[in-house]
């Protein structure tokens, strides 16, 4: 089985944040926002398992897709050594993505850290909806893809934890105020769990459609090994769904947040 594809672009967006543009008809033709690819890092035992990385955008004319990842361990570190024209082994597209908004709906995406990447793809595929984006970063130097987001939405709000850029503090603060004022049709969120929890709970309180993109350590990435468990409601009880197959995107109401 061959999931090898060619890299067309390898770019460092910020310290430890890398973008790879990959030629892949297979993925570009079938992908939808919120889906991910499962990436082999190297070919040996050093980072044995594949790493899940979201699809950050797709160019369906060129049959390419972008993925952006943070270098934070053995596997992603190996990916940092890949350059233009190198080959990369990417399974995908995998998982269930976001529900795309209807025409002229008003949507908001709320992302933090590495959670912002699938949201760019969602905005770019959301046609003529009215789009607001709320993005939280650690610090000014970690702010990436600002222009791309700016282009892809009608309103962009950025915050940094240390106040070095945009609004000072967590992105949930400006978002929650905005949410109550604007009451959008749909909210999508991806990022740190506390952020997603705050967003999802507020949306649910206010009866606003909300989808959450979850993270979990994975084995197979396709639903066969059942390791990527995610607690979901099951009547009065709970059960485990699987992030790789049932998710990564779940309706907020399904989750135990």
């Amino acid at each position, binding site marked *: *089985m*061959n999931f090898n594809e060619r890299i067309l672009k390898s770019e460092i967006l910020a310290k430890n944040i890398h973008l790879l543009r990959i030629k892949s008809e297979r993925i570009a033709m079938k992908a939808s926002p919120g889906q991910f690819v499962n990436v*082999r890092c190297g070919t040996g*035992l050093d*980072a*044995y*398992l*594949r790493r899940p990385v979201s699809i950050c955008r797709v160019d369906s004319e060129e049959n390419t897709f972008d993925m952006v990842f943070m270098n934070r361990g*053995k596997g992603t570190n190996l990916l940092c050594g890949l350059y233009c024209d190198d080959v990369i082994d990417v*399974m995908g597209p995998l998982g269930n993505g976001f529900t795309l908004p209807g025409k002229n709906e008003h949507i908001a995406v709320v992302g933090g850290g590495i959670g912002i990447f699938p949201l760019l793809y969602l905005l770019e595929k959301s046609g003529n909806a009215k789009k607001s984006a709320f993005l939280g970063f650690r610090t000014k130097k970690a702010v990436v893809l600002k222009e791309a987001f700016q282009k892809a939405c009608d309103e962009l709000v950025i915050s940094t934890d240390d106040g070095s850029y945009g609004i000072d503090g967590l992105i949930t603060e400006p978002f929650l105020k905005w949410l109550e004022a604007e009451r959008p049709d749909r909210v999508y969120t991806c990022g740190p769990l506390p952020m997603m929890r705050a967003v999802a709970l507020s949306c649910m309180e206010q009866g606003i459609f909300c989808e959450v993109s979850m993270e*979990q*350590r*994975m*084995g*197979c*990435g*396709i*639903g*066969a*090994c*059942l*390791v*990527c*468990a*995610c607690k979901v409601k099951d009547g009065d009880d*709970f*059960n*485990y769904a699987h992030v790789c*197959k049932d998710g990564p995107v779940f309706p907020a109401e399904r989750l135990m947040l």
Partner: protein
Amino acid sequence: MFYKELKEGFCLDLTVNIAGLNFKNPVIAASGTFGFGREYADYFDLNRLGGISVKGLTLEPRRGNDPPRIAETPGGILNSVGLQNPGVHAFIRDEIPFLRKYDLVVIANVAGNSIEDYCKMAEILSDADIDAIELNVSCPNVKEGCLLFGSNPKGVLEVTGEVRRLCKKPLIVKLTPNVTDIVEIAKAAEAAGADCISLINTVLGMAIDIEVRKPVLANIMGGLSGPAVKPVAVRMVYQVSKGVRIPVIGMGGISNGDDAVEFLLAGASAVMIGTAGFVNPGVWVETIDGIERYMKKHHFERVAELTGALV
């Protein structure tokens, strides 16, 4: 010279017969790593497989352990799924019809909290459209039963014996490597009427995330599988296949045809592959092809001749 004469019109026979079951080739998907086959069916033609051992079944549905359930370790993984499964009835209703569309040996892997559990499942599955039962007395990831039975000869003798009396299907007993004397345990299974031994299940292990100072797995410990355990698995297959007369199915870290051949030479009649499929979904098919290549190169006509064929 240990090469045999290469015949004209030489044709390879990959079939193996284990406990009366005909496998078209000796490569079987390992329990718990392959679900009920549906997911990998999108990646290759399941008809290529010799067989499949389905996700470990329990009498009642189980939701399994808290996540994280997986940790990467050097050359392997730890898992602590904890037997999440829909229960034996749902399996029969929802999964057997799907599996029966394919030409492969279907093995029901079962785990219980008590001997009664095992017996009930054996009875139920004896009337179901499956080919064999694999008694999982070796899962390290559940609190009661299971591994307890598998850790000593008495437990294995008892549970195998009781199940044997009710079970109308060929009975495979799957052993845990977490024991002092694997041969003694395999002999107990044989004495109690097992038709076949499969091994190894996962090796009990643990990993700690030093940044947060917590075990990586929510369940603290988990089962080690993948390439790292291969030498332990080969050793146990070698020991057990010398110690019992029933056939042995070997597994643990197989990643390609060469690894599979290593297990066959050690004494296995067939192999199972699990973890390597996470990394390479083509591993099962490539392993079959790799065994074929080895047979051609070394002039073996029948894969069954490889079993225990050390010189």
